[in-house]
């Protein structure tokens, strides 16, 4: 017999479901015309730069098949880089090259691939294999983030990224996704990455969840999640709120990585952020969204909103 949770219990916990997310939040607070800025990563990057939000450096944009041969030659000057589809979704089609070995490229997992395979990946990206709705796409090449060594022990073969959900400029909930061997270096929770809920007030971990079950240590590195404290937490919250102002999207998921040198860097934005963050925090979004609505009604000031959010949503005293 499959175990289910009763709808009443979910209601009590304030869990946000798919239908409510669409009808009440995305449909109401995210105007369609503002989606482009979020779905097109080049536009996101441009807007972020105009708003002084740090983003990974852009090396090249490849728009047509015939540019691929030249592009791979041009990449020779960079030791490490990341290839992404401009309109990719759900982290699909991201190829991370961490270094070279003669003529070959080393992936984040350590495997070596040839230049031919990099070219094929670019070609598939342009054909829209990884993009929203399978449309033709462009590929962008970015600098690889040298992620903060503090977080190294919490991730296996992948960059841990921090997701903040912001509603009307108020940071509501946060988590960090740590790749595992089981998730194949990917930060997707349903593929087995560990989601660690983060306290909005302090940036400390609340609880860590893998496959829907609580864990205390990273299954591969053995690092203890209880001791996790995200550095630069003030700046992360600030960045999250500013993205809401930049995009005009009321309900937004902000993905942030920590660079060794530059601190919090905006990786991408999401106009339809998933609900897994509730699993990582073992808490529902609805009560918090209601409070955030009140906070936003009370004040327009960016810093006040964050201060109030930290006051209301703090878990660790």
């Amino acid at each position, binding site marked *: 017999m499959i*175990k289910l949770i009763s709808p009443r219990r979910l209601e009590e916990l304030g869990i946000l479901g798919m239908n409510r997310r669409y009808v009440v939040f995305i449909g109401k607070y995210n105007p369609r015309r503002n989606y482009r800025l979020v779905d097109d990563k080049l536009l996101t990057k441009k807007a972020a730069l105009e708003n002084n939000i740090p983003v990974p450096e852009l090396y090249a944009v490849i728009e047509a098949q015939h540019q691929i041969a030249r592009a791979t030659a041009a990449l020779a000057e960079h030791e490490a880089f990341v290839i992404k589809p401009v309109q990719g979704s759900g982290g699909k089609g991201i190829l991370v090259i961490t270094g070279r070995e003669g003529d070959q490229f080393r992936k984040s997992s350590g495997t070596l691939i040839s230049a031919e395979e990099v070219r094929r990946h670019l070609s598939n990206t342009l054909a829209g294999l*990884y993009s929203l709705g399978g449309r033709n796409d462009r590929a962008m090449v970015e600098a690889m983030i040298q992620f903060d060594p503090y977080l190294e022990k919490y991730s296996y073969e992948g960059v841990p990224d921090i997701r903040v959900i912001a509603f009307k400029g108020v940071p509501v909930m946060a988590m960090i996704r740590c790749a595992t061997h089981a998730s194949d270096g990917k930060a997707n929770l349903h593929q087995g990455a560990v989601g660690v809920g983060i306290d909005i007030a302090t940036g400390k971990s609340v609880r860590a969840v893998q496959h829907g079950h609580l864990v205390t240590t990273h299954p591969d590195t053995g690092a203890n999640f209880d001791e996790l404290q995200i550095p630069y937490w003030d700046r992360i919250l600030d960045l999250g709120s500013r993205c809401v102002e930049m995009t005009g999207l009321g309900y937004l998921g902000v993905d942030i990585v920590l660079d060794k040198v530059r601190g919090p860097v905006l990786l991408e934005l999401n106009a339809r952020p998933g609900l897994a963050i509730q*699993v990582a925090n073992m808490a529902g979004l609805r009560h918090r969204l209601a409070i955030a609505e009140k906070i936003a009604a009370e004040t327009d000031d960016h810093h006040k909103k964050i201060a109030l959010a930290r006051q209301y949503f703090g878990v660790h005293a």
Partner: protein
Amino acid sequence: MASRNQIALIAGTLFLLGVGLTLYKAFSLGFPLLPGEYREVWTIESKISFTPRKDQPIQVDLKLPEPLAGWVLLEEHFASSGFGFTVADENDTREARWTRQSLDHSTTLYYKLQAYRPSSPELDDMPPTPVKKPLLENDQAAAMERLIALLHEQSADTDTFVALLVTEFNKDNQDRDAEFLLGTFEESPRVVMLAVLAYAGIPAHEIRGIRLEDGRRRQTLSSLIEFHNGERWVVIDPETANTGMPANFFVWQRGSGALLAVSGGTDSDLQFALVSNSLPAKAVIGMEQRAHEYALLDFSIYALPVEQQGVFKVLMLIPVAALVVVVMRLLVGLKTSGTFMPILIALAFLQTQLVTGLVLFITLVGVGLWIRSFLSHMNLLLVSRISAVIIVVIFMMATTAILSYKFGLDRALTVTFFPTIILSWTIERMSILWEEEGFHEVFLQGGGSLLVAVLSYLVMTNRIVEHLTFNFPELTLSLLAVILVLGKYTGYRLSELYRFRDLGKQ
């Protein structure tokens, strides 16, 4: 919330309108709410085509059918663009007459009627008609006498005499006299048989009518022979020698004589297109009685030509299937590949039947995925890759059809009803899903799609659903209301009760 109230208002109005109209039709006009007994209603479309002579007035006369042998005529329509048109009574038979001063191109006139047969009695009895001996050449008369003598010798009574006669004329190696008569009359065997019967003093005539076959086009008139055996009239098929009125025979005219007369034209031709439709018995009676009394009935689907009615029969089922998809996705939370792909698959299942459909679908997609994995290595651009998949799918369909035909599995021939483009996209999506998320996700989405397709199929083939959607199309308004309300449903999906099942345990 303003938008919520607005939706509630619109949905409420639509719902009440749909249910209200339905109840009005059910209780005031006597349409049955439940399927009950069905009647087979035939629509017979007669096409008269001819080429007019230059600058000559044209007159086309068509004898109209009489309600005979239990047939009831429901509705008649005449199409007569540019012609003067009257229906005249001539010697107890009705005749449609189209007239026109002149015409310079060949044309087609239409007469359409709907008929059904609530009971199948024999033709009414009537007194035997006087027999007129045909005028014959000497050698013909001699041959006929010899033939009649031979048949008399072999038969016991009039019934067996006629049966033997019919058999004789349909044999491969005929009697010399029968062969001679056929040769000299230069007419169809039927006419010769009638002449023999007349010569033998047996009252007989033709019955003209149409052999009913559903979906048949270009059907021509057929004839039966009716003779009097001294006690009563007997109908016999002049080809098979079977007696009695065939079940699938629509009687147009009892008696010999041409149905169609065209003056001022040549190459005249009379053909029929036939469609049968199962309608609830009570609705048929309602139509019969009140077809012209209520405007509402005039604007129902019944007012359409029957071929279009058939199309709408399926079209009106699609909203119900859409409701199934809405419920399965919004309330249950099933993942499907392509939002409405399951409906298209379910529509194909309607043609193939469920089990055959499932086997064919799984085979096609399975083999398609396998072939698609070769294409994957070729590193093609998206558009040509999908085009290649389309071609592969068409080849697979052809192969399936040919193989199944060779092995005598006629069911599998229905493979052609699967929508090619949709299949190709399904294969493409599944293939990408496999590469990116693994087989598990393919299984989940493919299974979800099939489950929704099967549910849609089961709902669409349900007798009551079929009956309600077709006879009460206004119920679709109520359905629309339900779908609008579901579009505002903000509660949890069933799948979320599973997904978040561990959240309560702290």
